[in-house]
């Protein structure tokens, strides 16, 4: 049996060595960051993640109690309100994060995949929000479903993605889209840790593959 750092160990050992090489503990959970990160614009990524956690927790409570709970219970209405407003904040913070990263060209320095996973997260979130509108079980959701049905039928996908089918939309909203969004968000954050925070355009170039965040802070 080989040690942690040695060769061998089959595919599990190979995966472990590769993961530890790409994301050593001091890079995965750094205690210092580059000096250029001392700006409020760098705060919006973590604010987005914090809002997403509240969205997932309150959505989990709503899923436990059922989709009609918030219509018949004050506590249900309160949790539904938390879910709504955490989504509002999630979108608010995510858009500012997107603007900030766009104007600092955050795909520089081999960070294209970080940018792409963030963009796909954004579009997945829009899908999750729209299916959320559809499962409110009120006149608002009926109206939205009626309008969306015409739009989706006009592009030929109404038979596969039927917005009038409450069960299908509920499953998309509480299973498929949160799963995809959660995995993408984790991938996005790991990529940020791997490649490092993007420096300002006029800052000295730091090769993220060679520099840990601790070294970059010096």
């Amino acid at each position, binding site marked *: 049996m080989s040690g942690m750092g040695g060769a061998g160990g089959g595919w599990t050992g190979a995966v472990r060595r590769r993961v530890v090489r790409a994301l050593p503990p001091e890079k995965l959970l750094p205690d210092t960051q580059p000096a250029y990160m001392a700006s*409020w614009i760098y705060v919006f990524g973590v604010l987005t993640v914090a809002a997403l956690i509240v969205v997932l927790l309150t959505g989990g409570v709503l899923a436990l109690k059922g989709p009609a709970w918030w219509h018949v219970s004050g506590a249900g209405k309160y949790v539904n309100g938390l879910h709504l407003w955490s989504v509002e904040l999630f979108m*608010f913070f995510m*858009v*500012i994060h997107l603007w900030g990263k766009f104007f600092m060209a955050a795909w520089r320095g081999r960070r294209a995949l970080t940018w792409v996973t963030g963009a796909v997260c954004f579009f997945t979130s829009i899908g999750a929000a729209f299916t959320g509108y559809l499962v409110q079980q009120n006149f608002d959701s009926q109206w939205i479903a009626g309008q969306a049905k015409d739009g989706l039928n006009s592009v030929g996908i109404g038979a596969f993605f039927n917005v009038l089918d409450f069960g299908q939309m509920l499953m998309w909203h509480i299973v498929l889209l949160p799963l995809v969004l959660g995995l993408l968000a984790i991938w996005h954050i790991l990529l940020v840790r791997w490649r490092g925070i993007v420096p300002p355009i006029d800052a000295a170039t730091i090769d993220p593959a060679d520099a840990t965040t601790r070294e970059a802070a010096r």
Partner: protein
Amino acid sequence: MTALPYFYPGARLFAAPIDLNGAGRYVHWGVVQLSVANLVIIGLMLVVFMAALLLPFPRGRGRR
């Protein structure tokens, strides 16, 4: 859990600052139609974005 009556002490304090019971107001700009509520949120996002760029970030103790 019973809901609070519509009028209770402090109701005005917690009420929405604008009447939300009527039809929404929209801004029309060619083919673009935008609710005033969404326009306000977009404006707020721009304000927060500019503030994030311009406001100084507090420096922690021992930070270089």
